[in-house]
């Protein structure tokens, strides 16, 4: 009888623990500013080698997560490419193409004349590591590889990108409301 009670108590405790863990995990919505930015090595786009955000250690990096099927990604692409053209020496722009067909992604890059380097997160595992909630999302990473700012959603124009990357130019990041 005692054994049965103990087993039931252990079962209930495990169930309660799982529920608590689930709730705590859900509350952990995104990466926190100041924590090391995940730097998994992934294939480049076009394919040919491997690369990661860690390759840019010592530089400010603007990481942009996108997909060709995402309409807001199309809307923000010219602003990002313009930012790369004007400020690329101060802030490296790195695209992370996620859960997309490689052919579609390459077509997108040709269409928007994207020149900044791209890595390909085919399965979406890296996006999950970045705790993104959708596309597009952008992150600003400092030269030590730590997250400085997060921007969920598309940049409306070049000014928005420059504002977001302000810490790289000695200013405060202008983050999107609600981020």
């Amino acid at each position: 009888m005692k054994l049965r009670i103990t087993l039931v108590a252990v079962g209930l405790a495990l169930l309660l623990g799982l529920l608590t863990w689930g709730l705590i995990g859900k509350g952990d919505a995104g990466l926190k500013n100041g924590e090391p930015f995940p730097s998994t090595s992934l294939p480049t786009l076009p394919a040919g080698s491997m690369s990661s955000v860690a390759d840019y250690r010592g530089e400010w990096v603007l990481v942009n997560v996108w997909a060709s099927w995402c309409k807001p990604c199309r809307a923000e692409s010219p602003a990002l490419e313009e930012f790369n053209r004007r400020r690329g020496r101060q802030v490296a722009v790195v695209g992370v193409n996620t859960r997309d067909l490689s052919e579609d992604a390459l077509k997108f890059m040709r269409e928007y004349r994207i020149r900044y380097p791209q890595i390909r997160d085919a399965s979406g595992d890296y996006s999950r590591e970045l705790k993104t909630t959708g596309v597009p999302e952008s992150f600003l990473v400092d030269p030590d590889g730590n997250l400085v700012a997060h921007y969920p959603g598309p940049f409306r124009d070049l000014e928005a990108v420059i504002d977001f990357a302000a810490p790289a130019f000695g200013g405060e990041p202008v983050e999107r409301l609600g981020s």
Partner: protein
Amino acid sequence: MTRSVPAIGRSPLRWGAVAVVAVTVFAISLALPVATWLPFGPGAAPAASPEPKVSLPEIESEVMCPICGTLLELSHAPAAQRERVFIRKLISQGKSKDEIKDALVAEYGGQVLAEPEREGINLWAYAVPTGLIILAALAVGVSIVRLRRNRSGEDAEPGNSPDGPAGTGPDRGDDDRLDRDMARFDL
């Protein structure tokens, strides 16, 4: 002053133009019969497209939408539409179901398959349920055998035999208890 107009009919330019036209017409007349049998020529029959080996619904029910976490057949997300276009293209190329699935894995990774691949750590996804089913079947089998053995054991006891002598076995115990109770209450 009268201006001398060159006699066009006799101009070497005109003869040159006539020669060019004649050569062009001759060349076209030679090229036309050739063009009719060239595979991509104007008179060519359309190239036979390979016979489809599988249909879209057959694949849709076995692969996932890359962003929705549901089967492709249940999703209408833009990413799912692109995945369908990709699958249709491979079907029209005459690819088999396995070839199409391999191509999808190459594009999206192994998670695109609704059923995990039967290799590596994914084998546990098949081994664990199979093992549990075998264990459950064994447990049921052993229980049935024990139950039968117990029943046959009970039946074999002399007191339980319908033909056995009265007042023996458990029945005899009951009789004794009844006697004791009756004696106690002076009945």
